[in-house]
């Protein structure tokens, strides 16, 4: 369905992908969209490669994104930005947290972490938005807000006013963390507008 938006979240079990996808959903729902999201629980969460699929629109049936149809991928790790390439198409946007997490074969010296891994995306006319979410979160004053930085970066590509996100964050984050999360969101949103490569 052409009027349905497809966002793929990818990363490594334990990175907090589910939380980031939830904040995005609340904003979409607040803006009046229907949405469905598919997650995988269980064994994969033990440090494995993990995805969540989010679809939104006027009326959403399937919870799964069709291969070749993800408009945006939000990747929390560099290699995981490339692993789901068959889900993307020319002109897809990949927002990537420029963090490396070594898979076991690399950590044990059996394989190497691929060099310049994001070129696999830019070579295929995919728009890459690198975000150093950890560093930005540290500058904001709380490394735990790296997730929210990523949500901010994603927000720049969705048809939702920043005010709706801010409302969601105000409503859902405990008061003492509210300001730092709002700052993290704003910083992430700012980054998206300046750091596109491959466009």
């Amino acid at each position: 369905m052409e009027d349905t938006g497809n966002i793929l979240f990818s990363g490594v079990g334990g990175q907090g992908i589910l939380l980031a996808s939830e904040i995005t959903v609340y904003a979409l729902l607040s803006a009046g969209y229907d949405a469905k999201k598919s997650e995988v629980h269980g064994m994969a969460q033990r440090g494995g490669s993990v995805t969540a699929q989010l679809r939104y629109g006027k009326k959403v049936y399937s919870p799964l994104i069709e291969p070749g149809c993800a408009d945006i991928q939000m990747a929390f790790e560099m290699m995981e930005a490339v692993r789901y390439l068959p889900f993307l198409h020319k002109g897809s946007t990949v927002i990537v947290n420029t963090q490396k997490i070594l898979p076991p074969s690399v950590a044990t010296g059996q394989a190497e972490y691929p060099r310049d891994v994001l070129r696999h995306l830019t070579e295929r006319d995919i728009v890459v938005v690198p975000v150093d979410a950890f560093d930005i979160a540290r500058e904001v004053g709380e490394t735990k807000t790296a997730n929210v930085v990523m949500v901010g970066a994603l927000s720049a590509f969705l048809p939702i006013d920043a005010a709706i996100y801010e409302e969601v964050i105000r409503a859902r984050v405990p008061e003492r963390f509210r300001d730092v999360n709002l700052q993290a969101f704003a910083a992430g949103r700012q980054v998206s507008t300046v750091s596109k490569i491959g466009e």
Partner: protein
Amino acid sequence: MTKINDNALWMSGNEAIALGVYEAGVKVASGYPGTPSTEIMENLCRYDGVYTEWAPNEKVGLEVAIGASFAGARALATMKHVGVNVAADPLFTASYTGVCGGLVVVTADDPEMHSSQNEQDNRNYAFAAKLPMLEPSDPSEAKEFVKLAFELSEDLDSPVMLRITTRVSHVKGVVLRGEKRQSHAACGINKIPGKLVMLPAIARKRRVVVEERMQKCRELAETAAFNRLEEGDAQKGFITSGVSYLYVKEAFPEAAVLKLGMCWPLPEKKIRQFAASVDELYIVEELDPFLETHIKAMGIQCHGKDCIPSQGELNTAIVRQAIDPGSGPELFAPVELPNRPPNMCAGCPHRGIFYNLSRMKVFVSGDIGCYTLGFLPPLSAMDSCVCMGASVSIAHGMAKALGEDGYNQVVSVIGDSTFIHSGITGLINTVYNNSASTLIILDNRITAMTGQQQNPASGYNMKGEAATALDLEVLCRAVGVRHVYRVNPHDIVETRKILKEAVELREPSVVISEAPCVLLPEMKERKPVSYFTNQENCVGCMSCIRLGCPAISWTSFAEGEAERRGYRKNQKGISKIDEILCNDCGQCASLCKFNAITRGEGK
């Protein structure tokens, strides 16, 4: 669960089922954790007025629910698909007794085996046990259908099965709140032996009742709203159910569809009418040709598994391309990348045991849990894994087949929860029929794989209240094991000595590995001191690397780098501990012979 407004909630299928169960006025619910069913019970236990518990296995869970139903209460049992195999014995006979209070059994199937050892299609159970089965497509329908299932159960005097799949359980969507049923059926003792005592003479009479009930259900299925005709383009018509319906709606939005909310029994007249109204009939279903087989048995021509895959999950693209080949977009080919399989956590106590097993020449008969990951490299220390509890009996069978020479060649490994689930009877058999196999019980005080559920050995019940803790050592001794050892798995050297001693015995032996799961809240809250590498002492022997701990990584030296940095000329590299990831287990330090790993001051 998140509130969108006063009436609408954003929730997963499992959360929606919990809400539906609450709204249906259920009094007793029992289950055993298993992906993708676990969160139903975890969410249900937060509602007031519903008694919830984790049972030691699915058979017990279902029997508890049957008991509650016999006492007049609405009752629920939840399990994953393979759990129904365990509960099949009471299920098939509860079909004969019928119910007093409404009884619903949730089976959560896992097409694609995201977290399972097989992808059996449990719709076959509805056919085999002669039970009505409802199959929702999404969270909103899951809530509606579970309430309906209780109504049907009481109207038809039958247990009703609710079949969900991973893409209903773990999909989130918008769900509307409903009314809570206020009037509870009065609970009390009902002596109706002609209905509840299944000895042959009575069972033969109830057998007739079962057929009458299924006939009544068939008639109801012809007119009920849950079997819904959606008019549309009749060139291609679709009969579908469950999550497959959603893929059909996306792929062929204009087509005529007969959506079956009840996948057993089938509304034959309705199906015939629909088949006659379309040019070509397609049956779209995941896994087995269940609807297709029964529709073909009606003498109706249709397409099904001749084009739709019978393995793994479906999705919109698969359905569209199966029916309209070549209709999809051209896809980017995947890029080859190092795999990222799941791994045991940093500090996981299981790692120490599997490290030792990887160094021993034994066949490791494994079981179901986080520790099945001991199969993966670099530990590669599991040689078989079949089903819950099988490790113990398989080891015994192997030992018997190997005979006298095999006394020290087979070890079985099982978690605390899995041992209680169905390993105990295997151990009784090992003792009774006397084989020399060694059983290792990995007691991490929790059911970890499914996300930290309490169990009879953990000392707490589902609500987190203190409960009597099963003493595993006393239990093993009580069934007749004379050699029971307790080890700290983080002390790799000492554990190895004990494992070797146990394996060499010519009698049954049990080694209980005692260390808590690092994901337990109390373990996460403590501030672990982390280990660090004294890199000047590291000789690159890779002993610590072979643990496969996610906190330890290897850096290869470039040519000449070793010498330049003051290491031996031919040293290949050094290892490094990520102090943020380290969970203070000390397994690596107990392996390092070069004083290159030291416990630090804390994070």
